[in-house]
């Protein structure tokens, strides 16, 4: 298969993805698609740092929560419209990524991972104890619209955000930054010897990787109109982002897209089969990650690429 054929497939998927704007789909399907795209955004964010650079962050779901809270607080206190709140959410998340990453990205490889272990929980505690958030969460002062309209508007916003994130990953991979972080992922010392300012590029990648989860969190807030610290900072978000990226193929632009789709479909089937189990989400994602690491460490798209000698981005 040539590169051209691959892009043909991508364009077909794109046309499939814009069908909901023209045809009235059942609400259940649209809700499932929205949830899928929310998760896909977190995976796309994690892929920039975990896939391209091989720096595993276990606290990436924290940026989801930060995005959600930024939007919720702006909505509650200033009644700001989505056109303003979503960019501010991305900005706030990148700033927090800068603050968190500035010290911790001076560490290398596994030591950086050590420093991200309890990051999710720290943010959850912060937002539980802080006076402007609180343990009860925030309910947005919005009147709920007609259900189908809510789904389709959310789908539109998510669609644009996912498209933007894919283009961002593309741009990173093609640019100077992408080369630098790829070199860091392969051999950090060699990259440093070659004259790459590793800390600067790592920090840049970390800041960019915080943007898609923040957008996802912001759109989630508009979608559900209620957030609380335990759900938006749940470690299950970070874990499922890692699991689905590894499933699809870490370091490939379309890895998280394919991975999250398969992951969410499998999860939905499991939920349908065992509706009464509470921790299913966590168990399922950890078992998937374990199987992927043991059976095919490159992920589905990575294995296909290797087997058929494709030039998939």
């Amino acid at each position, binding site marked *: 298969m040539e590169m051209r054929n691959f892009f043909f497939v991508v364009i077909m998927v794109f046309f499939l993805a814009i069908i909901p704007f023209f045809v009235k789909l059942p609400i259940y399907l649209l809700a499932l698609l929205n949830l899928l795209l929310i998760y896909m955004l977190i995976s796309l964010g994690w892929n920039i740092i975990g896939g391209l650079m*091989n720096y*595993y962050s*276990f606290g990436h779901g924290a940026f989801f929560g930060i995005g959600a809270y930024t939007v919720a607080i702006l909505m509650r206190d200033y009644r700001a419209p989505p056109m303003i709140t979503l960019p501010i959410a991305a900005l706030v998340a990148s700033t927090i990524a800068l603050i968190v990453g500035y*010290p*911790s990205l*001076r*560490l*290398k*490889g*596994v*030591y950086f*991972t*050590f*420093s991200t*272990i*309890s*990051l*999710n*929980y*720290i943010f959850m*505690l*912060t937002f539980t*104890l*802080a006076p402007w958030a609180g343990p009860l969460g925030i309910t947005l002062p919005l009147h709920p619209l007609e259900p189908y309209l809510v789904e389709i508007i959310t789908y539109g916003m998510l669609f644009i955000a996912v498209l933007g994130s894919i283009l961002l990953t593309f741009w990173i991979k093609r640019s100077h930054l992408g080369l630098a972080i790829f070199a860091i992922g392969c051999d950090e010392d060699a990259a440093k010897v070659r004259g790459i300012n590793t800390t600067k590029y790592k920090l840049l990648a970390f800041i960019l990787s915080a943007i898609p989860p923040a957008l996802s969190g912001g759109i989630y807030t508009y979608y559900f109109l209620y957030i609380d610290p335990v759900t938006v900072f*749940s*470690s299950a978000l970070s*874990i499922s982002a890692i699991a689905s990226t590894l499933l699809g193929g870490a370091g490939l632009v379309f890895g998280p897209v394919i991975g999250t789709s398969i992951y969410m479909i499998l999860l939905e089937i499991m939920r349908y089969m065992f509706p009464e*189990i*509470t*921790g*299913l*989400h*966590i*168990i*399922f*994602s*950890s*078992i998937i*990650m*374990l199987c992927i*690491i*043991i059976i095919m460490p490159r992920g589905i798209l990575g294995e296909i690429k290797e087997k058929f000698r494709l030039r998939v981005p």
Partner: protein
Amino acid sequence: MSIYIEVLVNGLVLGGVYGLLSSGLAFTWHVLGIPNASQSAYAILAAFISYWLFVLYGVSPFIFVIPMSVAFALGFFYRRFLITRFKDSPPLMIFVVTYIMAILIEGFMVMFWGSEDHRIPLIFAPVQIFGVYIPFVRLLALVISIVVFIAFALFLKYHHVGKAMRAIGQNPDAAAVVGINVELLSDIAAGIGASLAGVAGPLLGLIYSFNPSHQALWLGKIFCIVLLGGIESIYAALLAGFLLGVIETVSAIFLPVLISYIISYGLLLLVLLIRFRRV
């Protein structure tokens, strides 16, 4: 004045339990050469098991046999069937695998016990020592954690199996040359490290409330302790545990309560930056 003594004692109690938990982690890290991110998940699992035993069957949580043996079996088979598969992988991958196992244990705990806060409902009258009232449970927890730690240290220092384990930690190839069964003893060492968590878990469960997602929080704390003390010595882990326990409780009376939660994260980052920046 008495509040300061009370706080100091609370810090020591917390520190003793932290020290026990993280000396198990430091020991397995030293012997097996891998950081085991499941250590705190074992502890929470042990706490839940002894919670269940106490609530359902009235078994005293101070009888550690069942949680300890469950943790031992978990650690043993975990190293035998999972970790040995990843012998040639980079350390990041092995750490990720152990973290995934921790998440898996967390998921099963959520399935069985839900994600609410639990606490082992055992209450004793406080005792008065030098004019200070101290909850008896906490005093008992401190004594038990120190006794178990001393037993563990004596085992490592004088028993021939303990000596063999230390030899594996220093040089596995040389240990194999002098006739030590490296594979089996590594499995047993993983089990012993886990069974220390099997003691520390119920003790923490007696003092504080716990839920499955606390494993990530405790993991950050014990990594902070182990990296502060260094993995070569279990005594350093105990001391660092006391240090963190006292810092956390003392900071809780002077600073906002949030700071005392974040302090272990800050300390972990500081230790990592000072010790491992040039690695």
